[in-house]
């Protein structure tokens, strides 16, 4: 079923056709069909859905495969392997932007090969010393021919349910014992154990989140306790369930909405959830590789890749504070309008803030005539610049497309021939360089949707520092956007974006897509409407949103069987 974001998100459409967004890749059929077909099948359900008909409306739940992030965390918790071995896997497909879109995940020949190669390394590390073997199971010390079979089964009895994240069957164990025997013929006991680990790490029961489901008393299909344990654990911690979740799965606790909520709150309150929140923002925001940002040292002498790294940390620490700490607003709107940020000594000097010493980050007030909230942080505006000159299109497109979820289509047809990049040395200011976008009505139809946002950020140079002039010409940072109204400069822009309903909806949708591992489509209307309404009603509280996602039909239920 091909899916469309169109029609789900509120879209600005003023003479600029709202096209397909990223992640509209088909999942299980068609493929050859064009957009017409895609539109026909959008939604999956025929007819009008009534969200209040007393039935669950979970929409689709395609089979999910572990991402590199999740694989690294899982082998760390399963086998104590801290080497981040999954970094050797090929990059994930773009999909929903978080690399975990089940409809976009493909298995290439290279990935299958790397699953084998990486598993070989992990298994070797887990069995190469007596100490490592003992860590697997105490019975391995002093194991001999007579105790070998028993020891293998004892270890598998403990290891396998954790690796497969479910109760195991005798067949599960017997097959691996047979594999051990086959390898053992030509190699010592630990080598056979390593082979078993390699097989387990390539198994679909390990790599995929298989959900067979159970039927509850209302006749709705929902994930089993163990399947729900994995849903919760991978959402909040990006890894396999802990013992408390497995116990809750066993006791039936996770088969109720309340039980799910209780554990969701426990996981979110735990320090480990911050890793996932960081991962989410690293993927949503243009900050992940600021530490590798290169800028001309003569033009921007105070910037360095080290500063870039600090800028990323500034944004992350700021967001974690806003979301988790009592003094933080707890809300997305608050994060977008906060009159403070986090800096260490080096970054304070970079910004021209005095009185900060040491390497650790601390909260400081900012000059709110120049900056306000997340979007005006130096890393955010440096991370959307390609080169040594600012590009208002890229900056604008980031805010409009990733913060507000408004899709801007790419030029097509005859228009393509007219499109060419402006000479970076023409005109004194970015507004002059990109003047064709507003003067030519064909260009303006779409560029009026994003360029003004970029112009309002022109007071920030390519390394995110404040400037009043570019090439000796006073910067005009005024503009307006349909849906946002008029603004002059970054602070007014920040307020307008923070207050826009599209911004709130977009944030809720992004978190939902990340949590569900897919791109929302028209079949998610009930889940989405409710989440967005509740998010807005909460004053855009981020933690409440994350808990609310676990209480949505899409999270609590599975679609009826085919």
């Amino acid at each position, binding site marked *: 079923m091909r899916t469309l974001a169109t029609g789900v998100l509120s879209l600005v459409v003023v003479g600029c056709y709202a096209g397909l967004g990223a992640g509209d*890749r088909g999942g299980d059929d068609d493929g050859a069909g064009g957009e017409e077909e895609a539109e026909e099948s959008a939604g999956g359900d025929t007819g009008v859905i009534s969200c209040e008909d007393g039935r669950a409306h979970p929409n689709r739940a395609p*089979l999910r495969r572990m991402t590199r992030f999740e694989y690294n965390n899982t082998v760390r918790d399963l086998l104590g392997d801290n080497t981040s071995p999954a970094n050797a896997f090929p990059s994930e497909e*773009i999909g929903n932007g978080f690399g975990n879109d089940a409809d976009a995940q493909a298995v290439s*020949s290279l990935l*299958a090969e790397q699953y084998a*190669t990486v598993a070989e390394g992990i298994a070797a590390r887990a069995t190469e010393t007596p100490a490592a073997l003992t860590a697997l199971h105490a019975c391995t010390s002093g194991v001999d021919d007579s105790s070998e079979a028993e020891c293998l089964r004892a270890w598998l009895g403990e290891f396998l349910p954790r690796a497969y994240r479910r109760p195991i069957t005798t067949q599960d164990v017997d097959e691996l014992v047979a594999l051990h025997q086959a390898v053992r013929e030509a190699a010592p006991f630990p080598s056979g154990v390593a082979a078993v680990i390699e*097989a387990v790490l390539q198994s679909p029961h390990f790599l995929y989140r298989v959900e067979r489901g159970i039927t509850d008393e209302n006749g709705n299909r929902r994930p089993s306790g163990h399947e729900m344990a994995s849903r919760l654990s991978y959402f909040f911690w990006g890894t396999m369930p802990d013992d408390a979740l497995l116990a809750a799965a066993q006791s039936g606790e996770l088969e109720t909405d309340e039980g799910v909520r209780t554990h969701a709150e426990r996981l979110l309150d735990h320090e480990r959830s911050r890793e996932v929140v960081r991962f989410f923002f690293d993927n949503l925001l243009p900050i992940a590789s*600021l530490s590798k940002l290169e800028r001309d040292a003569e033009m921007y002498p105070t910037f360095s890749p080290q500063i870039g790294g600090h800028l990323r940390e500034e944004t992350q620490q700021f967001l974690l504070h806003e979301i988790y700490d009592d003094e933080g607003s707890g809300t997305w709107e608050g994060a977008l309008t906060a009159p403070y940020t986090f800096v260490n000594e080096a970054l304070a000097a970079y910004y021209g803030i005095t009185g900060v010493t040491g390497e650790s980050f601390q909260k400081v007030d900012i000059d709110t005539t120049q900056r306000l909230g997340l979007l005006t942080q130096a890393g955010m505006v440096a991370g959307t610049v390609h080169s040594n000159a600012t590009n208002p299109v890229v900056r604008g497109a980031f805010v409009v497309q990733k913060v507000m979820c408004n899709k801007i289509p790419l030029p097509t047809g005859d228009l393509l021939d007219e499109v060419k990049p402006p000479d970076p040395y023409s005109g004194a200011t970015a507004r002059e360089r990109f003047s064709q976008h507003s003067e030519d009505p064909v260009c303006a139809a779409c560029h009026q949707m994003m360029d003004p946002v970029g112009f309002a950020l022109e007071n920030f140079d390519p390394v995110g520092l404040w400037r009043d002039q570019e090439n000796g010409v006073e910067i005009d940072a005024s503009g307006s956007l349909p849906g946002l109204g008029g603004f002059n400069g970054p602070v007014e822009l920040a307020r307008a974006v923070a207050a826009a309903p599209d911004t709130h909806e977009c944030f809720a949708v992004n978190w939902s897509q990340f949590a569900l591992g897919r791109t929302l489509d028209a079949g998610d209307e009930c889940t989405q409407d409710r989440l967005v309404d509740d998010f807005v009603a909460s004053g855009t509280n981020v933690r409440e949103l994350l808990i609310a996602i676990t209480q949505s039909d899409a999270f609590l239920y599975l679609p009826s*069987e085919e």
Partner: protein
Amino acid sequence: MPRFRLGRRAILRGAGSIAIALPWLEIMGEGRSARAAEAGKRFVTVYTPGGTVSNNGDGENRWRPSGSETDWTLSPILSPLAAVKDKLLVLHGLAMRSAVGEQHQAGIIAWLTGTNQDGAGGYSQGPSVDQVIANRISQDKAIKSLQMAIRWGTGKSHGLLSPINSVNFEDNANFDPIPPRLDPQAIFTALFGTLDPATADDVKAKIERKKSILDHVDRQYADLSAKLGAADRMKLEQHLEKVRELEKSLDDQVVATPVCQLPELVDTSDYDPFTGLDSDDNGSVVNVTTDEAIPKVGKFFMDMLVMALACDITGVASLQWTDTEAKHTFPWLGLDQHHHYYQHDGGFRPVQLEQIYTWYSEQHAYLLEQMDAVDMGGHTLLDESVVFFGSELAQPPTHDKSTMPFLLAGGGAGMRAGRYLDLTGLPDRSHNNLLVALLNLFGDERTTFGDEDYCTGPLSGLT
């Protein structure tokens, strides 16, 4: 109906566990041609970024040859290819009309697929021609197709497989982008491990062990997929197909022959194949040490590519010289800005660009000469191959794609080389027609490929 393709071996081994709803012949591909015996044996694609200099600012085309079809002279940029001139078929004037989408991304996507980009941030809407050919001519090889890339993922990747980077797309229901192999040492071991006396015994022992493990893994996918709904089942079956490819490559280890020899192992410890993979919108990750190693590493890649064909490890290979971002530097040419900077990020710089494109011609000449040095018994490896050299656009300052700098080489399937074809006068210059003609060379007799809006039938004149 899902177009889920099955490997021949997958059918032989696992027909019982995989639902087959299509008639046998249909599943094996479009009617096999009677000419199959004489069809092309090997297909190679070589991607270089940023088009060429077809207008140096003074209106001078530095890429297009001069003269007539059979009496012609190489252009300045193509001049390094003089030694293999009689094995070239230069195609001037085709337009890449199907490249609709983001300028660079749509170009690299359309080059081998002939389809539009699937929305902003999307991939192709069809398979790439190399994958279709691989399913015809390379199913029984140890590796069905080999994708390799040098200094790849230089910008905007966000740690994901960006459409900026992808040139090959699976011939399956989703046309999944295929990530190329990047690590030269890992490629060497995977392809030639058993040929290397230093590692042969170790590799052989490991292979037996791996086979036992994969046999178990294979059964797990087969068993579980049978229990799942259609969509999830297809996903696991796709995974299973790749596991079986891996099993097959272990079964068919390469054996040395007079033409199949271990390539020289090159020390690439100064080269980080993964640098830049997590680069962001802010541009490139500069790694000068790695950039300096590109010529050496590129030659190593080409040596391995030639032997992968000569040893019959695969019949279809793809080599990418970086991606469309092209954000690495060229210290050995005295160029310390990246390629995209000279294309247009820093304004159009035809002099530096000509240096870069001429260097790429030198590299391509090396590849073709090496292929032409392998005697396959009365003819060379190049003679039984078709090598397609191309880019995602024609003119870097404008992203223009109306006169693409396409270069074919070889002699496979009766392709007549040693010619320069000026195709600017054709009523339909869409490059989709070339893709059809390439398929025809390999015995696939379809008359249209990619988006039909841009395809009117096979380009004539290749044979």
